[in-house]
């Protein structure tokens, strides 16, 4: 029983899986609690895959499918870049590339009261946190962290925003630092905000630097770490 369970665990973890693949057999896991992340679903005693990607496992007993797509699925506690599309008396309507528009209450700011509601024009880019994301409801956003401070959230002025896939934005936010950001940071000075919904905002002193950084990030999606460093070095050589 132990050996069989061990072989089941290592069978498909870190491999590419397709929708329909059965990756876990609950009838063999006695007295174990597992946590299912995105891309997996339960069908009686079998855990099967809903999205194509790579099956991941982290101790103790967390499973998820790591995939890359253009459409964003809102989850609580994600940090995303949103675009204000409308403002109502109680809420701003924000596009976060999800199935529906998200609500940003006018009081969800640091020190927000009825007397000093911030003014966001339509089209403003803001860095927000998802606090509620229930199916069938519009997601709810906030411009503060859990303790009520503004931290890094708020409107992003100037700069340049481009879109990538959710997998690439997770790579840019991973630790240790993504190789392309590490290589760019050694030579150039820029400011960057990465949203988990596949939006990236870059700002630098000159538009020239902004364009170089944006192009390097856009080109790095399908490259490995070493290839990313080589690509950045070639790019910087050309502009000097």
């Amino acid at each position, binding site marked *: 029983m132990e050996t069989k369970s061990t072989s089941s665990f290592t069978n*498909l973890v870190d491999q590419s899986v397709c929708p329909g693949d*059965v990756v876990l*057999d609950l009838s063999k896991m006695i007295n174990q609690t597992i946590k299912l992340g995105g891309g997996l679903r339960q069908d009686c005693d079998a855990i099967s895959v*809903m*999205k194509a990607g790579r099956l991941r496992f982290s101790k103790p007993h967390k499973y998820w499918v790591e995939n890359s797509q253009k*459409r964003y699925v809102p989850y609580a506690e994600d940090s995303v870049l949103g675009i204000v599309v409308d403002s109502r008396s109680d809420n701003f309507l924000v596009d976060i590339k999800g*199935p529906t528009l998200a609500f940003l209450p006018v009081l969800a700011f640091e020190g927000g009261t009825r007397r000093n509601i911030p003014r966001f024009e339509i089209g403003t880019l803001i860095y927000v946190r998802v606090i509620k994301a229930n199916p069938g409801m519009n997601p709810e956003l906030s411009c503060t962290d859990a303790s009520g401070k503004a931290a890094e959230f708020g409107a992003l002025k100037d700069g340049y925003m481009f879109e990538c896939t959710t997998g690439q934005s997770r790579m840019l936010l991973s630790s240790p630092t993504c190789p392309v950001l590490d290589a760019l940071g050694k030579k150039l000075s820029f400011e960057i905000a990465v949203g988990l919904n596949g939006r990236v905002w870059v700002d630098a002193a000159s538009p020239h630097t902004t364009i170089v950084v944006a192009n390097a990030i856009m080109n790095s999606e399908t490259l*490995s770490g070493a290839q990313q460093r080589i*690509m950045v070095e070639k790019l910087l050589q050309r502009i000097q």
Partner: protein
Amino acid sequence: METDRPDGRTPNQLRPLACSCSILHRAHGSASWAQGETKVLAAVYGPKAGTKKNENPEKASIEVIWKPKTGQIGKLEKEYEMILKRTLESICIRTIYPNTTTSVIVQVVHDDGALLPCAINAACTALVDAGIPLKHLAVAICCSVTDSGCIILDPTKEEEEKMKAYINLVFPNTIVSVLPERSSQVGSEPMAHGIMTSVTQGAMSVDDYLHCLDRGRAASARLSEFVRKNIGPKSTWLGRMGFLCR
């Protein structure tokens, strides 16, 4: 008696397959699928808010738009749209995004026979590329019956016009499972042998139909391996560097 095919294939041989994902920039998922000269481009948009009239607000809706290569949409294209919509609805998990609509646009690039299976394969691959939750994949194949009773796979348009009858079949893809072999079967057959869609043209006997099923199942196993290989992430480093150095 062996049938002599114009392009030199054996009766059980498929035409060369080609599949590309993520080729359209604006679509949330896109795929191009080619079988020989037949080529179809599929794009997926959504899930987007809102549903069409008379749709179920508790489930996600799927809208299929068929774009022929030339001419206007006629009755045949409407039938293809309906078949595609039913097939895609059966593989999607529609309760995750209620009250939304997913649009699948299918553009025919070239038609050289076996067009509907090519479109179904392209649409399924595009749904995977868009990250739509799916129960399983679907693979489609076309079998045809000659006047002399031979069964050949994946006919070209020239062959289709000479056939007595042909049938388009859609099966679930073969899955990788950690369950014991018996557990993932339905009755005494694996799930990949189930029929999701069957569309016939012409008249054929019951025996010919069952023979077509056997040939279709064997071919769908090969198609499943091909789809699985192409869905995974791929690197285009050389292409990117070529673009940069230009």
